[in-house]
């Protein structure tokens, strides 16, 4: 098998999205840390891997990709016969999967990422949390989670009865929010709460978190 490399930061949720996917698929890979503190992601040689200067970037042999959700979809299809099944067969089920992957990307992640930035990353970097931004984004996430609560009362996982990429894409930022005051948004919704507990308990999640201790 051609070598797999992930260039990124163990603290980046987008990088973690790809790591989670690789761990779910039980694939060997090399992790190449990018020194973001030194601005390595905004310079060559990294820019040749991701012209937007963002982590992660991915290599499978000579094939290069960026954008974590494009990478995870590539991995899920290319290695569909390995590890956890992350995509659904059939155009109807794949379509539903595509819907909920877009929901994560456009409805959930914007607000969730801002909450993680304010409450987890800013303190980590010695910056001050903007409580107004927290309030604003908790209000946005609340509306999204009401829809999730309804969805998850009809379906065990977002796109269907089994765990898929749609759920996996949520893991990194959700795992962070569970450790902040925003966890109350999950806890007050029983189906969302059970789903959050389920997806953050997956071994792949503890595996990418363990990389932070190395």
């Amino acid at each position, binding site marked *: 098998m051609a070598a797999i490399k992930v260039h990124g930061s163990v603290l980046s949720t987008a990088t973690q999205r790809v790591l989670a996917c690789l761990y779910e698929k039980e694939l060997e890979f090399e992790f190449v840390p990018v020194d973001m503190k030194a601005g390595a992601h905004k310079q060559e040689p990294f820019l040749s891997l991701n012209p937007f200067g963002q982590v992660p970037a991915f290599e499978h042999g000579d094939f290069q990709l960026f954008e974590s959700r494009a990478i995870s979809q590539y991995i899920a299809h290319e290695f569909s016969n390995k590890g956890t099944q992350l995509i659904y067969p059939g155009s109807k089920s794949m*379509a539903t999967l595509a819907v909920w992957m877009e*929901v994560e990307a456009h409805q959930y992640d914007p607000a969730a990422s801002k909450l993680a930035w304010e409450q987890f990353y800013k303190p980590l970097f010695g910056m001050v949390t903007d409580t107004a931004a927290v309030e604003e984004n908790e209000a946005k996430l609340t509306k999204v989670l009401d829809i999730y609560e309804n969805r998850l009362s009809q379906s065990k996982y977002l796109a269907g009865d089994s765990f898929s990429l749609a759920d996996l894409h949520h893991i990194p930022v959700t795992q962070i929010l569970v450790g902040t005051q925003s966890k109350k948004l999950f806890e007050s919704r029983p189906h969302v709460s059970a789903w959050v507990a389920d997806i953050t308990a997956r071994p792949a999640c503890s595996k990418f978190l363990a990389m932070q201790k190395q």
Partner: protein
Amino acid sequence: MATPVKVYGPPLSTAVSRVLACLLEKDVNFQLISVNMSKGEHKAPDFLKIQPFGQVPAFQDEEISLFESRAICRYICDKHADKGNRGLYGTNPLVKASIDQWLEAEGQNFNPPSSVLVFQLAFAPRMKIKQDPAVIKQNEEKLGKVLDVYEKRLGESRFLAGDEFSLADLSHLPNTHYLVSVTDRGELFTSRKNVGRWWGEISGRDSWKKVVEMQNQGS
């Protein structure tokens, strides 16, 4: 002949027009069903059943019900791989992955600032909503940085994902059309040589011209 698919929403909506462009590229028959957003029809209980976020478009193909324009486009391309523009979503996994990469770049990097500018500059005036100059400036700067990346890329490649027009390019049509045609910020695109060349090519496609016609018919 298959039952036409149903697209719910006004063609003026950028997300609706994204789906319409895809259907036209793929030669898939569709029925456009109006949703009167000024009357709040997109928040009505029956509509929320097919689009729980109360946004347009919603889409139905016989018993399948979908939302999120980029997911709808992917479905159309997968189901009708052999119709119309066959290369729109790639004909092999590597090309498809590259198209996904640029579709994600559109969704994550291009769409946020360009959507804000479309709202502020094209829609807010029509809706008699006050513009926010600080927000406009901030998003112009963000979009400028994204277009700098595109300028470099489009100097190396005819279209974003390679030599062929793809879903990744198509996804940019709706927001760019408004910015270039309706606002005075078109120079963000036209002042960048490669981006300007690319815009001319993709907006000149028959499929997009038909969508613009539908928008101008004032649905």
